C-alpha cells in the first residue's frame, strides 16, 4: 500500500463523510421545517379561536342590546334616537373589524 493508495482511501472516506453530512443536514432542516409548520398551524388555530370567541361574545351582547333597544323604542326622542343609532352603527363597525381580524388570522 503506497502513499497514493492512502490518499485514495482518504479521498473516498472524505467524500462519504461529506455525503453523509449533507444528508444529515437536509434531514435536520426538513424536520425543523415540519416542526415550524406545526407550530405555525397551532399558533394560527389559537389566534382564530380567540377571534371567534371575541365575535361570539360580541354577538351575544349585541343581541341583548337589540332586545333592550326594541323595548325602549317607544320612549325615544329624536336626539336619543340619533345617539342610539350612532352607537349601534359604531358597534356594527366593531363587528366588521372583528370579522376582518378573524379572516386575516
Amino acid at each position, binding site marked *: 500500500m503506497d502513499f497514493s493508495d492512502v490518499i485514495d482511501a482518504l479521498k473516498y472516506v472524505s467524500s462519504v463523510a461529506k455525503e453523509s453530512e449533507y444528508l444529515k443536514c437536509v434531514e435536520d432542516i426538513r424536520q425543523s421545517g415540519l416542526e415550524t409548520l406545526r407550530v405555525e398551524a397551532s399558533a394560527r388555530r*389559537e389566534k382564530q379561536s380567540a377571534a371567534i370567541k371575541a365575535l361570539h361574545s360580541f354577538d351575544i351582547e349585541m343581541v*341583548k342590546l337589540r332586545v333592550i333597544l326594541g323595548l325602549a323604542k317607544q320612549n325615544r326622542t329624536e336626539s336619543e334616537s340619533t345617539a342610539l343609532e350612532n*352607537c349601534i352603527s359604531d358597534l356594527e363597525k366593531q363587528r366588521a373589524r372583528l370579522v376582518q381580524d378573524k379572516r386575516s388570522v
Partner: protein
Amino acid sequence: MDDFEIIEPTRDQISVKDSRTSNPIGTHREIVHAVAGNMDKIIDIAKDIVDIEKMKVQSSAMLAKMAEDRKMLLAEAEAYVAKKNADTHNVVQRMRVIQDLLRDFYVHNQASASGLSGEDFSRIITELLTRTE
C-alpha cells in the same frame, strides 16, 4: 586476552548502516514526490473537509433561525390572544354599560325620576363611545 577475538565488520553490516544514514533524504524526496503527484487529490480532500464544516455551520445557522421563528410565532400568537381577550372584554363592558343605561332610563321608564333628559342621555352615549374607542 585469549578469550576475545577482533572481528572485522562484514559487508552486510556496512550496508545496513549506510541505508540508515542515507534514508532521511531519500524518504523526504519520496514523500515530496508522492505529495506532488497526488496534490489534486489532497486538495480535493481538503475541499471536502472545508465543505463539511461549511455545511455544518450553515445547517446550524438555519436550524437556529427556524427555532427563533417558532419562538416568535408562539409569542406572537400569545400576544394576539391576550390583546384580543382584552379588546373583547373592553367592548363587552362598553355594551353592558349601554344596556344598563337603556334598561335603567327607558325600559323601567325612570328618566323623569332621575332627571336625565334625552339630550343628557345622548351626551352620555357619545362620551362613552369617544372614551372607549
